[in-house]
């Protein structure tokens, strides 16, 4: 009996980690596609494509940056041959010494997907410290919220942006 109990507990602990239990709704049942459309069966189902990509716990349940960096997907950078494809590697630290950990903004994953002009100079000026960020605006779909909450990981993932404890930042600045 005790063995059974131990087995039950082990099964509970191991099961969620071992199996990929991600689920995607079929197009005909997602609430926005018209199930009466005969062409619907010709379209790729989300589960078919997304189940093969690195997992995440929010959004499409896919870690899109990891998918790109690992080579699981190889999306084209440009269609026009004359386009200058720009990638930038530095990190900007913003929102320092507030009630939340500071925000580390990594240029690399952002510029792998986007062009500089998608954010500069309309959403943000190109000068560290010159932008006033507001969670209110972000939650309203402005600033970072243009993408985060719509196509990039959602705003419930606080610690993925607010990732640098202020004590660590302070120690770094003193050095």
């Amino acid at each position, binding site marked *: 009996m005790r063995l059974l109990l131990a087995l*039950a507990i082990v*099964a509970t602990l191991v099961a969620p980690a071992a199996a990929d239990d991600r689920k995607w709704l079929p197009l005909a049942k997602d609430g926005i596609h018209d199930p009466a459309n005969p062409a619907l069966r010709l379209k790729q189902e989300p589960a078919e*494509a997304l189940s093969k990509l690195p997992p995440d716990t929010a959004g*499409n349940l896919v870690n899109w940056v990891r998918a790109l960096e690992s080579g699981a997907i190889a*999306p084209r950078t440009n269609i026009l041959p004359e386009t200058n494809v720009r990638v930038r590697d530095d990190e900007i630290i913003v929102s320092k010494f507030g009630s939340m950990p500071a925000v580390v903004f990594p240029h690399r994953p952002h510029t792998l997907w986007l062009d500089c002009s998608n954010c500069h100079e309309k959403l943000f000026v190109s000068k560290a410290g010159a932008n006033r960020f507001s969670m209110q605006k972000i939650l309203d779909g402005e600033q970072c919220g243009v993408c985060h909450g719509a196509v990039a990981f959602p705003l419930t993932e606080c610690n993925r942006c607010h990732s640098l404890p202020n004590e660590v930042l302070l120690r770094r600045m003193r050095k």
Partner: protein
Amino acid sequence: MRRICALGLLVVACALLAPHAASRAEYGDVVLNRRSDGEGVRPVIFPHWFHRIRFRCKVCHFELGFEMRAGANDVTMDDIANGKFCGMCHDGKTAWGADRCDLCHAGKPGQPSRIVGGAQTSGPGRW
């Protein structure tokens, strides 16, 4: 002992039967209905997940000039037929052409243009 066993089994049952995410369209799906309802065709469903496997954001939002705001782009079928916006790829060679209406115009009629996910949350900004 029996009570502990029952508790253990209950925990296992809960883990197995845990409800999955509530019924909703895929994150980043865009409904485009500036004109569709008026023209008597289904609204367009644009799936970001499908396109970003093949193209980076910058291809459409920089090279092709799509504004990053659902409903902000005034795209006509004329534009598409002339190789602009969606027509850059949906030309019948790179991807299916504009003659395959139902593949893009696949939404339930009567829906407003929006992004599923959404650009706005129901968080404090809306209270």
